[in-house]
């Protein structure tokens, strides 16, 4: 598929600052852009609660700028396009998130994100900033086999971690409790993606990868990392069947489990296509005796205009369900937080 090479930008060097200014101008009731390029909550979290920071490469909007707000992150440190922010910037983020109960740095597992977070924690230690910890998160089953699970990449499934981690920190849980919850949700989450097209890197204008127009790829990473298998594009139902089989087997998800479902738009699929995909997801899970507790469909972590999606499942116990349903108010993720009926339409 031909890649749209020209984007509506001003200068390649000003993409990130221009985007952040426009974003902050749109949502002044929720966020504030700091002088050093961080997105922070308009109203800081109450004192005595754990602060949550995430640094990440830009180019995945609305992740993660759209996830700062009550019930979610305190601070997002956006880096350059697809490049994690440097350690001293993360340390500034840690200081901005500190509310007297420690700070947890969330890391979506990619080489640059991990190295910069590790360097930041060493720097924080050198500066004698107390009570800082990090949690490394991954979910993409295509990126490493199950016996090397800690080598897997972070991908769209971290959606469930962010939501529940935000809620548990808001509830006043300790730093250790927040980390435990994040690891628990990570360990119950699996995702797999499919791409039908590449996309252009906003700085170079070059495609992230090349793929024939009539082919698709399973397992493409959120920065266009090479996936595990290419084939001719097939029907929505067949794609879901191809993806669900390995996804269900990996945890494994079993008859009787309750799950949260995410269908994340990687960029340019239509909602129509995502709903058609979800029809098959719901049908297959029902056949497997797996009960869908909540589903979220939309663009959460994108890869520019890539045509594709990720399917993520999280096995949810009572704790995860309660935290998932807790209120949240980010610019691009909101949860009203009232008690709702389960989504089982039987």
């Amino acid at each position, binding site marked *: 598929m031909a890649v749209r090479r020209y984007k509506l930008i001003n200068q390649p060097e000003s993409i990130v600052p221009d985007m952040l200014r426009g974003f902050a101008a749109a949502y002044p009731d929720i966020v504030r852009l700091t002088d050093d390029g961080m997105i922070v909550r308009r109203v800081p979290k109450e004192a005595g609660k754990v602060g949550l920071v995430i640094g990440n490469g830009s180019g995945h909007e609305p992740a993660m700028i759209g996830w700062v707000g009550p019930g979610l992150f305190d601070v997002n440190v956006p*880096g350059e396009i*697809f490049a994690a*922010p440097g350690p001293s910037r993360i340390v500034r983020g840690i200081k901005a998130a500190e509310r007297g109960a420690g700070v947890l740095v969330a890391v979506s597992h990619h*080489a640059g994100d991990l190295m*910069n977070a590790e360097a930041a924690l060493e720097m924080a230690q050198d500066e004698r900033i107390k009570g800082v910890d990090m949690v490394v998160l991954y979910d993409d089953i295509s990126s490493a086999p199950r016996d090397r699970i800690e080598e897997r990449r972070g991908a769209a499934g971290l959606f469930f971690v962010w939501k529940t981690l935000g809620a548990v920190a808001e509830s006043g849980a300790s730093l250790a409790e927040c980390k435990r919850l994040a690891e628990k949700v990570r360990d119950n989450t699996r995702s797999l993606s499919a791409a039908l097209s590449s996309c252009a*890197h906003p*700085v*170079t204008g070059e495609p992230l990868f090349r793929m024939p127009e009539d082919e698709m790829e399973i397992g493409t990473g959120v*920065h266009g990392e090479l996936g595990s298998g290419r084939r001719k594009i097939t029907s929505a139902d067949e794609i879901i069947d191809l993806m669900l089989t390995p996804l269900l087997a990996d945890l494994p998800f079993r008859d009787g489990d309750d799950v949260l479902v995410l269908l994340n738009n990687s960029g340019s699929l239509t909602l129509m296509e995502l709903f058609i995909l979800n029809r098959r997801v719901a049908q297959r899970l029902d056949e497997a005796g797996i009960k869908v507790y909540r589903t979220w469909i939309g663009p959460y972590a994108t890869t520019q205009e890539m045509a594709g999606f990720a399917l993520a499942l999280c096995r949810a116990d009572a704790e995860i369900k309660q935290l998932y349903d807790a209120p949240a108010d980010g610019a691009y993720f909101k949860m009203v937080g009232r008690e709702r009926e389960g989504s089982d339409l039987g």
Partner: protein
Amino acid sequence: MERTSKWWAGSVKEATLVSTEMSMDADGVMRMVRAMADAVTEQAVHLGHLDAISGDGDHGAGISRAMRTAASNLEAAPPSAPADALQRTGSVLMDEMGGAAGLLFGTIFTAAARRAGTAEQLDTRQWAAMITDAQDAVQKRGKAQPGDKTMVDALAPAAVAFREAAEQGLPLRDAFELSARAAAQGVEATKAMLPKQGRARFVGERSVGHADAGATSLSIMLGAAARSLTERSVA
């Protein structure tokens, strides 16, 4: 050692030298950073294409931009000492380039700055220790070993060449030149390697036949460092 107009004759043992540049001061580091910035900028498109084979293709644009910013910052507020210039360059790479590459290239400069300490002048022996420290720091941070198809495959031979040059008491310019040549050979060797670190590992065999982008940048920067010393002795 015999000195003729041809400084290089194929190996360290046979090297014949014209350069008498023995050390680098703060001003020299600033000049070196500018030369590195110019060199990676000239090669930015090539570096981008190399990166596109196993990465997202923006390495050339990223390192060129960060090095130009670092050079301009030094020229706007001249460094107080070599370590100051190196530290500030490392910080710009980490903060403005970001990602794994920004952190690791930045680490080369900050580790070198730490070893440089308060010295006003850096000679071949000091640079050999600085580059050795830089290699250690990069490997510690990135957890890459030689043979993983990363910048370490250029940095490790460059450090060896620098230590050999120091043992022979060679002038700094020649040490940088030998080091750059060793790095270039290291870059050549990366073509046959299978990537084992970062996102490149997902590409596997498709990257065979192509040099690693980070190793290539490093070798270009070492070559530029050598030339910056020549330019200085001419000036």
